[in-house]
């Protein structure tokens, strides 16, 4: 009260530029102006220099014919008709593919290793410790080169391929028969969808019943029958509406079938194995963060160690695990740009590699690539934050 009244008595004595409100607004206006000026100066200076050097600028290259070949394409691409724009999408999809699969593999491997490291089994926990300490202390680039050269060197030449069940494994990759649809396969897929919906329904029913009566139902078994068994039965009833296109050995290469290239395998393995070591530590930290009293309480209620881990420890550990886990996912996605080293055609290899070199438009190409990585990372963060808000401690 006293301070207020002092301020109220002498409003006229404070010059306007000493008014804290005015100052705070003024500083922010000046800062914004400076930032805008800096960006404007940088952009116009870059454009000016490019023009002086007679380097083309703008995005006109996007629709020009690319003219180069890409070894792995998820969408239609050919050197003759496709544009630099299409090459960009090919690279982006390849990045997303290796990123998504890498995250799945790294998560499975990381959780397994992290939990193993806490195991009472001496051998298991020492193996997990050795894994973590070895893998995370070797630079990723070296590991990628190791995987690539190990994969290449260990496998036989294409003419001495390992063959099994119509598949071929050699230093050009893994070639498996490609399943092709016959009419009627739609019914099998429909049965699969019905199975998923039905098992979800069963799960909710079983949970409700357990809440009310305490009786447990064999949810896992019933789901398995519904999701796998039902489509299988339909599949055989309809006389197996599926045929396979087996790879054929030509003069140089295998044609037909599905091919898994060694560049892709090396990158995927390298990224997953490396990131899994970090995820393992994150998981271990998360589990350690749950007080031991929780375990003891669960045991004293008569829960065995499996359900204790699944129902008591992990749900509580998740809220410690998820935020650092998000960083590991982001690291994995960003690290996938090391694909350049092993010749996997990801966004960086295709777009900031060949496209940049051919168009010479470093500023545009690099800016686009950075924006794309920023966008992918932000979306990943967003999804993880949504998940985090579900698992975090709900405070009342």
């Amino acid at each position, binding site marked *: 009260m006293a301070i207020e009244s002092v301020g109220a008595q002498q409003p006229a004595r404070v010059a306007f530029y000493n008014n804290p409100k005015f100052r705070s607004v003024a500083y922010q206006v000046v800062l914004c102006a*400076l930032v805008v000026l800096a960006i404007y100066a940088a952009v116009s200076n*870059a454009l000016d220099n490019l023009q002086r050097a007679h*380097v083309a600028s703008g995005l006109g290259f996007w629709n020009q014919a690319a003219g180069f070949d890409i070894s792995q394409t998820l969408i239609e691409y050919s050197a003759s008709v496709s544009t630099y724009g299409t090459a960009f999408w090919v690279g982006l999809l390849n990045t997303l593919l290796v990123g998504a699969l890498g995250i799945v593999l790294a998560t499975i491997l990381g959780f397994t290793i992290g939990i193993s490291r806490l195991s009472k089994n001496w051998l298991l926990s020492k193996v997990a410790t050795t894994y973590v300490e070895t893998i995370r202390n070797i630079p990723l680039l070296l590991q990628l080169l190791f995987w690539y*050269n190990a994969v290449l060197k260990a496998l036989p030449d294409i003419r001495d391929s390992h063959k099994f069940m119509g598949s071929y494994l050699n230093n050009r990759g893994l070639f498996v028969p490609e399943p092709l649809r016959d009419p009627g396969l739609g019914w099998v897929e429909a049965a699969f969808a019905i199975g998923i919906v039905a098992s979800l329904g069963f799960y909710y029913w079983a949970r409700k019943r357990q809440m009310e009566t305490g009786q447990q139902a064999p949810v896992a078994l019933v789901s398995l029958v519904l999701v796998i068994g039902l489509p299988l039965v339909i599949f055989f009833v309809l006389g197996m509406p599926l045929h396979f296109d087996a790879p054929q050995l030509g*003069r140089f*290469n295998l044609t037909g079938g599905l091919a898994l290239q060694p560049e892709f395998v090396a990158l995927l393995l390298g990224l997953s194995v490396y990131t899994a070591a970090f995820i393992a530590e994150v998981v271990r930290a998360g589990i350690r963060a749950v007080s031991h009293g929780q375990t003891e309480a669960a045991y004293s209620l008569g829960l065995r160690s499996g359900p204790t881990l699944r129902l008591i420890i992990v749900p509580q550990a998740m809220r410690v695990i998820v935020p650092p886990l998000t960083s590991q996912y982001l690291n994995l996605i960003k690290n996938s740009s090391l694909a350049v080293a092993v010749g996997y055609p990801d966004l960086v290899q295709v777009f900031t590699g060949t496209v940049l*070199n051919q168009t010479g438009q470093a500023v545009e190409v690099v800016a686009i690539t950075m924006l794309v990585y920023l966008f992918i990372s932000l979306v990943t963060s967003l999804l993880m934050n949504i998940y985090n808000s579900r698992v975090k401690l709900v405070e009342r």
Partner: protein
Amino acid sequence: MKRVFGVVALAAAVFVAQGASAQTLKQVKDRGVLNCGANGQLAGFGLPDAQGNWAGLDVDVCRAVAAAVLGDAKKVKFVPLTAKDRFTALQSGDVDLLARNTTWTESRDTTLGLNFTGVNYYDGQGFMVRKSLKVNSALELNGASVCVQQGTTTELNLADYFRANKMQLKSVTFADADQTVKAYDAGRCDAFTTDASGLYSERLRLAKPDDHIVLPEIISKEPLGPSVRHGDDQWFDVVKWVGFAMVDAEDLGVDSKNVDEMMKSTNPEIRRLLGVEGNFGEQLGLTKDTFYKVIKQVGNYGESFERNVGSGSPLKIDRGLNKLWTKGGIMYAPPIH
């Protein structure tokens, strides 16, 4: 408030600073050393030896320019560049001159903002395969996997050639020349493609060079030459005429061994080349005896060729198209007049 304006002025000054300036010659003279973009991995063209001494046909271009501008062929800082990064390095001013077995093409000359100063090696793209495949022609490569280096004209020619001949191509691209060759050597690809000169050079690095053959087809024109940035005519002229002078010197029979005797020559063309008559070096913004220094320290084009890629080198490449125009080749330089 004054301080704020001061900060604005400072920020403005930082950002308005010039990029690649048009004064390359002056910059090089002031710096006292020439920054030269080179290969670093290709024997015969640009490769440092065990002692770190760079040698090669392209390396000699850098040395010749250094001899002309700074008077000492040793005042060169070599910057090893990959095929992918080379143009950005030149555009951004990291190097004053790019001499890295680079093919002269229309788009590089225009949209990339380069100026090619001439051709120091007439090359063409070829293929190398394993002898055991029993392939005798590039036209038999339908369905083959081909290892190729990224960011090269060869990458484009490869796709063109297979398309034109209606053949299936499986290309595997690497950013790095070493990795490309290693993958081919490991059996990842059936064929390896690059400029023919490069094929002979890379073959020496394979585990068993004798198991591989170079196919007879040359599928493209690859005129390799040094390049500088657009928009600096004086520097462009310097690099261009140093190259021409080396060819003219061979044409006139002047080499590093006889250049001192040749100073007494009565042939007016030789007298002009060596700066005894006229002021041709000075017209470039250099000294009268500019070309004398180049020939004395680096030699003429023929000497450079034989020493690096020809009979005096492990590559033993035939001069072919790169012979002088008087001897059945197409190597020709305008006169110093």
